């Protein structure tokens, strides 16, 4: 690193002015990030609150509520957490801990890692299209839970794998060496020492994945469909309602009640995202406290 020292040669007041402009510009940029965030949240909340009634939570869409959509979104998220959580966790562990020593094995690992990252870059509508063509129509499953879960899982597995890999990489080397010195078998050490240490990071990754699964619209439109009745747990053949659909489909409807339903769904989504964020913050904060004590 070389430093060019022309800076002190400049007149003093010019440097002070440029520093002030710099400071003002960065704070202005920060403001440009914060204002939309606050504006969107307040805009949606203020639009929904005047017409919000709690009966929305206890009636299905057939009767002017969103209970079916809330339950449907919950089912979808639990399903994604189970499927994508298992696969993503496994893939992350493999990529972080099981890297091969042989050259051929390393090439395979590199291929798998690249594939995971490329999958993260495939737009969600493309995956939704694939789900529609191959699963909903091709396999005659119809709009239903299983294609929605498969497509959403394909979307979020890379995120969970990446979060798992990153938090495993941050486990201190001393822990692994200590485990090995105590004579633990690698698998045992993984379960009892390494995964335990990495758990907060993995959980945060899982929460991010849940936020994505709960907030997606495009891939669900053509895989889950929509249903104004309560969803069932049937894997195929029954359409599943979810919270983002009313926002997308009802906001420009002529009837007031449908538009209010759209705003209500948006409000519930905002509450859901804020809750997830706060939970992940609490997890991170608690782990940092524990980490300090351990040190």
């Amino acid at each position, binding site marked *: 690193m070389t430093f060019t020292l022309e800076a002190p040669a400049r007149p003093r007041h010019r440097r002070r002015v440029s520093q002030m*402009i710099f400071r003002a510009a960065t704070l202005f940029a920060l403001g440009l990030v914060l204002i*939309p965030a606050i504006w969107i949240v307040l805009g949606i909340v203020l639009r929904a609150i005047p017409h919000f009634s709690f009966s929305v939570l206890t009636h299905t869409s057939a009767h002017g509520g969103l209970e079916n959509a809330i339950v449907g979104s919950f089912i979808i998220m639990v399903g994604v957490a189970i499927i994508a959580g298992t696969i993503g966790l496994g893939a992350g562990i493999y990529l972080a801990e099981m890297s091969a020593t042989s050259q051929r094995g390393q090439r395979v690992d590199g291929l798998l890692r690249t*594939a995971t990252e490329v999958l993260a870059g495939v*737009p*969600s509508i493309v995956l939704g*299209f694939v789900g529609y*063509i191959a699963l909903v129509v091709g396999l005659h499953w119809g709009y239903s839970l299983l294609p929605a879960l498969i497509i959403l899982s*394909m979307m979020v597995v890379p995120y969970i794998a990446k979060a798992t890999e990153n938090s495993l990489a941050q486990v201190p080397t001393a822990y692994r060496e200590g485990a090995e010195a105590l004579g633990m078998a690698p698998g045992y050490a993984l379960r009892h020492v390494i995964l335990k240490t990495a758990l907060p990071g993995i959980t945060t990754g899982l929460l991010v994945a849940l936020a994505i699964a709960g907030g997606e619209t495009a891939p669900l439109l053509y895989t889950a469909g929509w249903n104004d009745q309560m969803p069932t747990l049937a894997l195929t053949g029954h359409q599943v309602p979810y919270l983002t659909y009313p926002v997308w489909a009802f*906001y420009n409807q002529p009837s007031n009640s449908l538009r209010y339903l759209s705003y209500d769904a948006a409000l519930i989504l*905002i509450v859901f995202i804020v809750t997830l964020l706060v939970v992940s913050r609490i997890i991170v904060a608690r782990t940092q406290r524990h980490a300090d004590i351990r040190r």
Partner: protein
Amino acid sequence: MSLVRTEAESPSNPGPPSDSASVRERLRNAETVLWHRGTFVAAVLPFLGLAFAITVVAIKGWPAILVNGTHFFTGSTWQPGSTYGSTVYPHGVATPQGASYGAWPLILGTVQSSAIALILAVPISIGAAIALTERLPRSIARPANFAVELLAGIPSVLFGLWGILTLGPLLARDVYPHIASIMPDVPVLNFFNSPTGHGEGLFTSGIVLAIMIVPIITATTVELFRQVPSLNQEGARALGMTDAEVTHSVTIPWVRNGIIGASILGLARALGETIAIAMISGAILGHTAQNIYSPMTTIAATIVSQLDSSFTDATGFATATLAEAALVLAVISVVVNVIARFIVHRTGKLGGPVGRG
């Protein structure tokens, strides 16, 4: 780092179960092998999923690729043809008479809206990242970080709802007319001239996309700034540099590639964004944007808005064409993503070990 011992790695030689090994130890070795094989299966699944997705889109889109040819990338017509008319067979593919698809407006719309988003988002994100890492009081930094995370977590359909109901009308009423009135009628800048429309269109889409990718670029840049060795920054400060000079001559050069990578990552997100654009773009087919306020559409928005009606084409050609569009979009996004990740990784390796010590 490899945790598993070499013996356990080749599947043909699962662990070293010597005769003296206790049952317990054998179980533990079995666990190691089980972990290895189980996680390998999980790691293969994303690869299979990717292969599956590409295969489906390619097979479904193949007839359209044959018939549409290069006209798909240059033409501007989006004509499903006569659904109830006779069927013709160019290249042996059944198509409705008069069907003609050109995706140029979709491709151009995708590139234009993403470009606007990138131009707006990159300076804002870098500025915000500097503000977030440099000497901001904790009472501001914490809520600001929370707001960035919140912005990253807001579902895109809510960006769409806000864009179409709040931002679009406001811009069309109070901002666009003023921009249009001060722009001279010269090349490039006359793209900003009136008519300014109703707030559904290219500019509004670009602005909303910018807001959507700002948290991605900001968060990655903040992460990169934290990796810059503090010794270098402190040394520069000790030499009498101001914050601006430290940022300009130490921090930014250290992470330049990473910022480029982060920006491309944001670009990839903007290219593939669907629902928000489908709501805000005005969703017009067969036309490129006349000025920056005009309605437009993108590849992703077209797929989501046309997939339903494509099934009125009994020959399946409309769906095949959408599959071709999906393939084009996937290829663009994947290429952009791979480039971005390559750049970010390379920088991460450069900057990582120094700062952590």
